[in-house]
Structure formats: structure tokens, C-alpha cells
């Protein structure tokens, strides 16, 4: 089964697929930034719920989403585990040898886990329902620096080329009888293969640059965009921005900042 990030792009069956890309990008970016810094665990849970609702609205199969978020989730899990065991103030809930899990460390770990998971799910919902080239164009319209966009574009374009090259090399190793067995020879063969991929990527880099020069590249932007926003798009973006701000109200109230302002 094809589980590439763009494998559900062309389903085009959901309201999220059909939504204006600018609206989607701005709403998701605002939500992701907001979720990443939210202090209140209930609000983080609310954001997680929102992200799951986005997946349901986008009609993305749950297996696909799990497969897409699995690797970054493991990475975050490691961070959360480190945070959990880092101790802190408050009641000790559990001790493993010299490591204490306190109420504060448990809360911090849960918070980082929930908000990072919510952010990844939101990004997955965006990437799986919006063509990457359109996201790039939206970012261009949002005045993201052109050099950054070009790096982003090339990364996306050449991921597929390099993965094909890697597949070709793996197939050719298999065709010559190579079977991955835990041995020094296996590590050496894989290292050689990766080395070759690196050399090829350098060469390809040169050739791509050569071809850009052959097309008169001077460093100026080379993107044409044609995205139009309508009233309903502005309403949706405003609504998303409002939610992105509102999820910080409990924490701000608790810290006294909001009451201070009100007072």
C-alpha cells in the first residue's frame, strides 16, 4: 500500500481537501505555533481533540495517520520520558532507583507529549490534503524568504529521486546476492551504499545548478501564484486565529497577566 505523505491528496473528497490552501496553511500554522507554547494541559487536550477532528473531517484513514506520525511520535516520546525522569518539585508519585517521578515532571511530560502530538497531527492533516507545490506558493504569498522556499522545494522534489536511487542500489545489492545479516560486512556494505548516495547527491546538486544556470537563473523568485481568498476564507482564518489565541486564556488568567490587564 502506498503510504507516502501525498497518497491521499487526490481523493479530494473532504471539505478540508477543498478548502482554500491559504486558509488552511495560515490556520494550521497559527494553531501549531499556539499549541507548541500552550501551558494549560486542558487546552493542550482541547488542541489534540481539534487535531483529531481535522483528521476526521479530512476523511484520512486512521492507519495512514498513525503510520505518518509514528516516527516523530517516538522521537517526542523519548523527550517526554527524559522530562518525566528529570525530577522537579512536588509530590513524588513513583521512584525508580535514584530517579523520581514527581507530579510536576509528570505534568510537563504529558504536556509536551500532548501538544507535540496535536501539532504533528495538524501538520499531517495539512500535508495530506494540500499539494506541496501549493503550500510553497502560499508560503511565497506569505512573504517567506525565497531562498528558504527554494531549499524546501528542492528537498521535496529530490526526496523522491534519492529514494528511487536508494531503492535501485538496494535492488542491485540484492540482485548480487546481498542479504542483510548482522555482520561487519553488512555494516560496511550499507556504509558504502550511503557513501555512494552522498556522492551522487553532490553530483546531482552540481548538475541541477548547471541546468538552472542553463535556464538563466539569477537568484530572483521564479514562482507564479494565483490564489484568491473569499469572504468565507477570511471568516475561517479569523475563527482559527481566535481559537489559537483563546487556548492561552486559562494560562494567562492563572498567571495573573489577564486579570492584571483587566484590573
Amino acid at each position: 500500500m502506498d503510504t507516502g505523505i501525498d497518497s491521499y491528496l487526490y481523493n479530494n473528497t473532504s471539505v478540508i481537501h477543498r478548502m482554500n490552501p491559504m486558509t488552511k496553511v495560515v490556520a494550521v500554522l497559527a494553531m501549531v505555533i499556539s499549541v507548541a507554547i500552550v501551558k494549560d494541559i486542558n487546552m493542550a487536550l482541547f488542541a489534540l481533540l481539534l487535531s483529531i477532528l481535522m483528521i476526521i473531517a479530512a476523511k484520512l484513514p486512521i492507519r495512514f495517520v498513525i503510520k505518518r506520525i509514528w516516527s516523530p511520535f517516538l522521537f517526542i516520546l523519548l523527550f517526554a520520558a527524559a522530562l518525566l525522569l528529570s525530577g522537579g518539585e512536588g509530590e513524588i508519585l513513583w521512584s525508580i532507583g535514584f530517579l523520581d517521578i514527581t507530579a510536576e515532571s509528570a505534568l510537563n511530560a504529558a504536556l509536551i507529549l500532548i501538544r507535540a502530538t496535536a501539532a504533528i497531527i495538524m501538520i499531517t492533516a495539512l500535508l495530506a490534503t494540500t499539494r506541496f507545490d501549493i503550500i510553497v506558493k502560499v508560503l511565497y504569498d506569505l512573504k517567506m524568504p525565497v531562498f528558504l522556499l527554494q531549499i524546501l522545494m528542492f528537498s521535496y522534489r529530490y526526496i523522491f529521486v534519492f529514494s528511487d536511487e536508494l531503492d535501485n542500489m538496494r535492488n542491485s545489492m540484492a540482485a548480487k546476492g546481498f542479504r542483510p545479516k548482522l555482520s561487519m560486512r553488512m555494516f560496511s556494505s550499507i556504509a558504502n551504499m550511503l557513501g555512494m548516495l552522498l556522492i551522487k547527491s553532490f553530483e546531482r546538486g552540481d548538475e541541477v545548478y548547471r541546468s538552472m544556470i542553463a535556464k538563466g537563473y539569477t537568484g530572483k523568485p521564479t514562482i507564479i501564484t494565483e490564489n484568491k481568498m473569499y469572504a468565507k476564507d477570511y471568516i475561517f482564518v479569523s475563527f482559527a486565529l481566535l481559537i489559537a489565541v483563546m487556548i492561552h486564556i486559562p494560562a494567562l488568567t492563572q498567571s495573573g497577566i489577564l486579570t492584571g490587564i483587566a484590573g
Partner: protein
Amino acid sequence: MGFEEMTETENGKSENCEKQSEAMDEVTPVLSVKNLTYHYPKNKMALDDVSFDIYPGEKVAVVGPNGAGKTTLFLHMNSTIKSKGHIFINGKDVADMNPTQRVKEVGIMFADPDNQLFMPTVFDDVAFGPLNLGLSKEEVEQRVEEAMAMTGISDLKTRVPHHLSLGQKKKVVLASIISMKPEVLVLDEPTANLDPKSKRDVLEIVNKLNADGMTIIISTHDVNLLSELADKVFVLNKRIIETGTPRDIFSNPGLLEENNLEASDIFKFFQLLSSIGFDCEELPLSFDDAVNEILTQMEESGGHIHLHTHEHSHEEMIKLRKEFQYRIERID
């Protein structure tokens, strides 16, 4: 037709070619290569004193063995490899031109399309060149539409390059070059690894561009398409070994062998036929030529073609097959 007769005809053609060349001398060449010598790092010779002129509207092929320096020569043509004083376009040194000027004069299509399609969609790739020329959005869009229509890829406009077949990718690259409307189009092995239909498509596009006045320079190993791809051929093997029409080149077995080349299958087959009595004025180079030749012969001889062996038929066939580098044992 015997060999001698054929050679006479070929000489006649060559004379015509020379007369044509003399006439061309009065026209300013669109591209001139003058005494170009280039060494790879570690002093390995890549090009040795290469000189030639290409005139407006010509359709020229550069053929030669692998590693003959074809791609290196092409890289000089748009100054990717700098070589001041050696490459001139319409009399101006290409090394002195700015990138925008240069791409208006020469468009180069390299062999690997994956290196040349780096934008997110087909449209963006075809628009890349015109945008670099500083054209307005409307004009860029118009050029993109024209180039895509010309190459038959209008339906791929919003597709991402990594989902395309090799044939489609090559056509997109071609569109992305012709959207810059260069005066000279340089194609490095445009038909390599393509299926027969895609080859034919590329051939048709190239011929149409040439008919519209674009000067074409092609490197190819595809000898069966050579006569359709080019009117003039340069045999390059570090230096220019020979210049002539495809027929001149195919008729020189020594030249072909020394440079890892061969004549087209049709040409070779009709050479064989001529040894068993098929008498034609000019050996056909392509399938279409062959069909015409056969039909003409049949019309002239009352609906028949007469083939027969004679005293020397067998020897001639052996000689020919030897020249074509077939194993002699297979004949016996």
C-alpha cells in the same frame, strides 16, 4: 547498383554539400566554435582543437563514441564551462554575455531529465526560464501554454515531476527550454532510453521547431533516426573527425568502425539488397525513404522487384556483413 556507382552518387551529393557550404560561407554562422581545446582535471584530453560553424536554421548532429566529448562541447556552448574566445553566437563571445542574454541565444537540454526538473510542478518548471528572462506574468503564461501545446504536454500542467514517465519528463524539459525561445536549441541525447513512440514524438517536435526556424544541434547514438534528426553530421572523437551528410558518414565503413558507429539498419539492409540485384540510385537511410524507394522501383518495373544472385553476390554479402561487424561464421 554497384559500389562504384554508389560512390559516384555519393560524391555527387558531397559536391552538392560543398557547394551548399560555400554558399553558407557568405552567411554569418549562428554558432561558431573556434579552436576549442579542453582538458579534464588530471590533464585528460576532452576536446582537441575543435572548430566548426553552424548556420541559421541548420539541423546538425554530433555523433561519436561514449566519452568523445559531446557533453563537454555542449557545456561550453552556454558557458557552463568557461572558454573565452572559443564559442561565438552571432559573432559575440558567449563568455561575455550575461545569463539572460545567453539563454535567449542558446537553450540546452541535458540527458538526465531529473536534473532539469527541479520545480514543484510541470507548469512551474516550464515557467522557470521565462521568469528568469524578466517577462510579465501574462507573457510567461502565454509562453508556457505555447511550449506545452507544442510538446503535447498541456494535460500535465499541474502534475508533479516525480510522478511522470521518462518520456513525459523529457518532453517537459524540452518545453521548459523552448519556452525561453532560444535561437539555437542544443539537445544532448534527447532520444536515449525512450520507448519508440516517445522517440517519434521527440523527433516530430524537434523537426517542427527546426521548420519554424530554430537551429538545432543534437548529440545521439540513435543511427536509425540520424537522417531524420539531422541534415549535417559532425563525427566527434575529441576532435572533429569528419563532417558530412548522414549518407556521407554511413557510406564510410572505416570511419564508422574507428568511432564505434554504425550505419542505420535500413541503409545496411539495402546495401545487402544491392548485392543481390536491387538497383537503387541512392540507398535509403530511413524507413520512409525505403518505402518510397521500393514503391518507385515497383512502378518502374511493372509491379515487380527482381532480386537475383550472381557470381559475386555471396562474396559481396560476406564483405558487407564483415563491415557491419557481424560474425562471419553465421553466414556459413
